[in-house]
Structure formats: structure tokens, C-alpha cells
């Protein structure tokens, strides 16, 4: 009896193998924050974006079978690395996407290089990923700290906002953002009149806002993220910062944060993003589909989630050209060779250091009376062309480039 069962199982396995001989399997792991502060900016929305990319790709490439798995790194590098190792070694994952939180991403990029798989970094902000820590297995989509500082800083100084006071989150990310933005402000003829470092996850900013108010700076730069940014802006409205003639510059603000603030509170805020759902018919159609799949009609996709879609799609195109996902370095080389083209970011390219070049947009949050429908958040103030939006290749100190 036992023998028969084993035989039956064996022949069944052989049969399946035969049927799938033509099929190429690709497995994508979305490593993200499913339970904490970046859940809304990435999280389930990123997983859905990867699934949509897989779906769209398989429609035109029927011999491919793309599977998407997801994991929660809990914002801990050790947890992230453990999941990545398990995925690659045991579950045969070929590409890891998303990874919000630069600390986790800097660890994951090493795992991808060691095991020769691909990391499409659409979630993290650290520009070091394409700088000193760059490698031949990583592509950095969506944004980075240099671009945020440059985009928002430069445009605001040029529009007359030439004196700055920073509210800075007291850890590596905040310090980097403050440093980069200060440099941009000074280089463009502005000045920095002061800064205050607040602990991460501060709920009350009134004391810091008072200091910012007394500094008389025209612009209050928020070198922080998530709940800290929201609290600062919310209480800034209460303390009459904007009414008093000062303005906030959000250095990292997602559409999900604007949604959380409401336009009444967030109006007038300047910010830089590389994707806005309401840009053209293609982005609107994609957003509708995303909302329907997730059953969240009152949430709007962030640039990170769009980055997961675009990055995954471009990765799959490279795999299709090579007809194999086995060699990560070869796939990334192919991704760099081909120009990028997708409905969300438009046409672009991948640079030698892994930086994806696409335009960035400076937005201003609309007044409530200007907003005509839910999700109508931004006025476009200016477009920063792809070749100016990101750090010049020679300034990054990427070993791949300097040799």
C-alpha cells in the first residue's frame, strides 16, 4: 500500500514537471512594515502594488509564473535579514522589494549582494544606498535624502524662503536630512538661523514651535517623518505659525500623511514627491484599481507604493529579456541597460550606481476650498527634470563607478 502511494506521488510529480517544462518561475518578496509607523505609506499597499505588477506582466508574458510573498521586518535590521535569508535560501525568492526604513535596507542590500539576488529599494530614503554602500545587485527607486533636500530646499529658497529653522528628528536620518538641506539652502544664497533636535516620537511640539517662532525664520524645515511631522504641522496650525507668515517645508511627507492631517491643517505645506496619484489618466486608472483591490476607497497610494509597482515591472522585463532570474547581477545589469517605462513614473533610466532617474515634483498642499474631490491634495509648483533631481554620479562615492 505504502509503495503504491509513493509511486503515485512520484508519477504525479513527474507529470507536473513535464507540464511546466516551458514555464519560468519568478518569486518576489515584498519586505515591508506591516504593523508599525510605515504601514500606511508602504505595507499592504506595497504588497498589492507588487501583485499588480506581476499580474500586468504575466498578461503579456504567459510563460512566466510570478509569485509574490510578503514579510514584516518590524523596522528591525536583524528581523529583516533573517526573513531575507530564509526567503532566498529556502523559498527561492529572486527579488526583494520595498523595505522602508533605511537601517533595514542597508542590511538587506548586503544580503542581496552576497547571495547574488536582486534588491529593488523603493522604500528606503538613505542616499548612501547609491553612495558608499552601493553594489551591483541593488536598484534604488522612488526617492532619496539628497533628492528630498535638493528638491524642496532649492525651490523654496528660489521662491523667496531664504531663512530657515530646522525641527530635526534626533537620529541618523534626521541629521542627514538637516545637513543636506542646510547645504542646499546655503548654496542657493539662503541662511540657516537655527535648529532644534527633538527625540523621535515626540507628541508635543509646542515648545519647539515656540522656539521656531521666535527665530523669525521664514521657513520651518521639518527634518523628521511620520507621526513627528504630523504632530509638528498640526500644532503649528494651532500656534498660528502659518497665519503669522512663517511656512512649513516638509522634507519627507507622504500622501498618507497629508490624508492624516486633513487639508484644513496641512494647507500651504511644500513638499517634494516623485509620484502623485492625480497626475494623468494612467496614474488615476492605476489608483482606482489599487483602491478596488485593497477595498480602501479613502486611501491614496504613496510614491513608495508606486515605486514597488514600477520597480517590480522593470525587474520582470529584465528577467524576460534574459529568460532567467537566477543571476542577480546579470538581471541588474540588464535593468541598467534598458530605459524604464511605466504608467506611474513615465520614462526614465537606471544609472550605473543603481539610482533610478525620473522627474521629481514640488507640490503645495491645496486649501480645503480648492480641493474638488477626495484625494485632491496638491498643486504642482514645479517639475524637477530627471537629470537634476538626483545627486550627480560623481558626488556619490559609489565604488561601482569610481572603480
Amino acid at each position, binding site marked *: 500500500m505504502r509503495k503504491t502511494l509513493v509511486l503515485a506521488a512520484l508519477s504525479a510529480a513527474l507529470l507536473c514537471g513535464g507540464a511546466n517544462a516551458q514555464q519560468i518561475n519568478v518569486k518576489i518578496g515584498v519586505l515591508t512594515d506591516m504593523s508599525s*509607523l510605515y504601514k500606511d505609506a508602504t505595507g499592504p499597499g506595497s504588497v498589492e502594488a507588487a501583485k499588480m505588477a506581476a499580474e500586468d506582466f504575466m498578461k503579456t508574458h504567459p510563460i512566466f509564473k510570478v509569485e509574490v510573498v510578503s514579510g514584516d521586518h518590524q523596522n528591525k535590521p536583524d528581523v529583516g535579514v533573517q526573513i531575507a535569508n530564509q526567503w532566498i535560501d529556502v523559498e527561492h525568492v529572486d527579488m526583494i522589494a520595498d523595505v522602508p526604513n533605511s537601517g533595514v535596507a542597508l542590511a538587506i542590500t548586503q544580503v542581496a549582494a552576497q547571495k547574488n539576488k536582486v534588491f529593488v529599494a523603493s522604500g528606503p530614503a538613505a542616499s548612501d544606498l547609491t553612495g558608499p554602500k552601493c553594489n551591483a545587485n541593488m536598484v534604488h527607486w522612488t526617492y532619496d535624502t539628497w533628492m528630498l533636500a535638493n528638491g524642496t530646499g532649492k525651490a523654496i529658497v528660489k521662491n523667496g524662503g531664504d531663512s530657515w529653522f530646522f525641527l530635526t528628528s534626533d537620529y541618523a536620518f534626521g541629521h542627514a536630512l538637516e545637513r543636506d538641506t542646510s547645504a542646499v539652502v546655503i548654496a542657493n544664497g539662503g541662511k540657516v538661523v537655527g535648529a532644534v533636535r527633538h*527625540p523621535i516620537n515626540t507628541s*508635543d511640539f509646542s*515648545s519647539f514651535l515656540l522656539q521656531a517662532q521666535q527665530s523669525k525664520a521664514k521657513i520651518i524645515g521639518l527634518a523628521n517623518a511620520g507621526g513627528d511631522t*504630523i504632530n509638528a504641522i498640526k500644532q503649528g496650525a494651532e500656534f498660528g505659525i502659518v497665519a503669522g507668515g512663517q511656512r512649513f517645508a516638509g522634507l519627507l511627507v507622504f500622501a498618507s500623511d497629508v490624508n492624516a492631517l486633513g487639508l484644513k491643517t496641512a494647507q500651504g505645506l511644500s513638499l517634494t514627491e516623485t509620484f502623485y496619484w492625480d497626475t494623468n489618466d494612467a496614474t488615476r486608472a492605476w489608483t482606482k484599481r489599487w483602491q478596488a483591490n485593497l477595498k480602501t476607497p479613502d486611501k491614496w497610494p504613496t510614491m513608495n507604493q508606486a515605486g514597488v509597482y514600477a520597480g517590480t515591472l522593470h525587474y520582470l522585463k529584465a528577467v524576460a529579456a534574459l529568460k532567467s532570474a537566477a543571476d542577480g547581477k546579470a538581471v541588474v545589469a540588464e535593468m541598467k541597460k534598458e530605459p524604464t517605462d511605466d504608467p506611474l513614473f513615465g520614462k526614465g533610466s537606471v544609472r550605473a550606481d543603481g539610482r533610478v532617474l525620473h522627474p521629481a515634483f514640488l507640490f503645495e498642499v491645496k486649501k480645503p476650498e480648492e480641493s474638488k474631490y477626495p484625494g485632491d491634495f496638491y498643486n504642482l509648483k514645479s517639475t524637477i527634470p530627471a537629470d537634476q533631481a538626483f545627486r550627480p554620479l560623481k558626488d556619490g562615492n559609489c565604488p561601482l563607478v569610481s572603480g
Partner: protein
Amino acid sequence: MIEIFGIPSSALFGQLLIGLINGSFYALLSLGLAVIFGMLNIINFTHGAQYMLGALVAYLLLKYSGLGYWPALIIVPVLVGIVGVLIERVFLQWLYKLDHLYGLLLTFGLALIIEGVSRNYLGSAGLPYALPDSLRGGQNLGFMFLPNYRVWVIVASLTVCLGTWFMIERTRFGAYLRAATENPSLVRAFGINVPRMITLTYGFGVALAAFAGVMAAPIYNVSPNMGSELIIVVFAVVVIGGMGSILGAIVTGFGLGIIEGLTKVFFPEASNTVIFVIMAIVLLVSPAGLFGRRA
């Protein structure tokens, strides 16, 4: 202009006032904790989650039934208080005879569950809640701009704190309650329904947390994490004031708000830590806290 340690005195006045306002939040939250610990001997780790529920329910009321800030200030504490009563009846009442640790673990677990479920349904980025129109704007005091809402926070918090203190320390009901904590069986012998009184007290403590949550909704980010960010500081306040001491919670709440406010001017990086430094010192010098009764 006169300068104190390099800071203009006008700036310092502003910071002192801000500290006082933040202190009133601490006082309001630690008050509920102190009432629950003093009367039930339960270390209520769910307090942060109940504060968060207060803000979330206020948001839901506005979104689904159009009830604004003022009705929410009354309705939300009642609703969340009822949830508290259920928690006490179903779980907590079985733990009074056991070590403190069991109550702590149970309430901590409940807090994680409440926060996890809220995050699952409402996301983590936060939800919009605008200032009520009647409290918009503010006064220019010369040395600072004082938003009207902050004035209201101080007034409401002081009223609630003093009212609670008066009820527990100066009324007949309060006397029963204090007697029931000292010797429940004796108070029962006088024909007083002690379990019901305890249940209502827990419900009241929870309602205080929810009240603070509604007060916080227009100015702080309304998100499932808002409670866990604040609860540790509030616990430190209660420990410094003396576990279970109601007056201690109120006085320490205001005092630490001021100290924290000053730290934000002179050494902002330490503003999250200063309260714990003070806690360590107080525990070394006076282990029962500043106002606590020695066991």
C-alpha cells in the same frame, strides 16, 4: 531684555506656560492611573490604549454620526468607560487576590490587542481631527502666542483633577471607596456593594483616560500608536508622585510638565529622558514616591 542663561526671559515665560499646559495632560492621564491603582491595586497598562480609544472613538463619532468635539467630550468617556466596566467584569475581577504582576500582564496584553486591532482597521498614519471652531485662534501675550485651545486644556484638566480629588478625599462616596480598599469585608458587612463600587471606579478611571484622548485629538496625531508613546512617561509621573496618590499624580504631572518644558529649551535632546532621570533620583531618595504612603 533680561536674559537667563542666555535665553531671553520672554522666551522662558513662554516655555514655562507651555510646560504647565503639557503638565495638565500628564496630570489628567496619571490621575486615572492613580485612581485605579489606589482603589483596585491594578497597574493599568491598558491606560494608554484607552486614551487612544478615546481619540479614535471621537474621530469615528465625527465621521459616522457627525457629532463634533463638544458632544464627544461627554459621549466618548461614557462609551469607553463602559468598555472598561466590561473589562473589569470579565477579566480583572478575578485577579485582585493575586500578585500585581498578573494584572500588569493582563492589561499589557489587552493594550497590545486593542492597539493591534485598531491599527489593522484604521492604519498607522493617523486620522484627521480638526480644532473645534469655537476654540480656534489665540491670544498674543507679548512674549508668546497662546492658542485658545491650550487655555481650555488647562481649565478643563484642572477642573477634572480637582473634582476627582474632591470626590475621593472629601465626599461620603469617596470615604466608602477608601474604606473598601483598606478592608473590603468590613465595608461589605455594613451593607455596601463593594464589587459594584470597584467596577464603577475602574470604569471612571478608564473614562478619564478617554476624556484625555478626546482633549488630545485636535492637537496630537490621532493614531493607534499615540497611547503607547505617552504611557511610559505617564507611568513615570505616577511613580514619582507615589503609586496610588491622587494629589501626588496631579502635582507631579504639572511639575514634570514644567521641568520637561525647560529641558526642551536648554537641552532638547534630553527632553524624553529627563523625566526618567528624575524618577531614578526620587526612587533612590524616597522609594514610595514624593506623596506615596510607605508600605
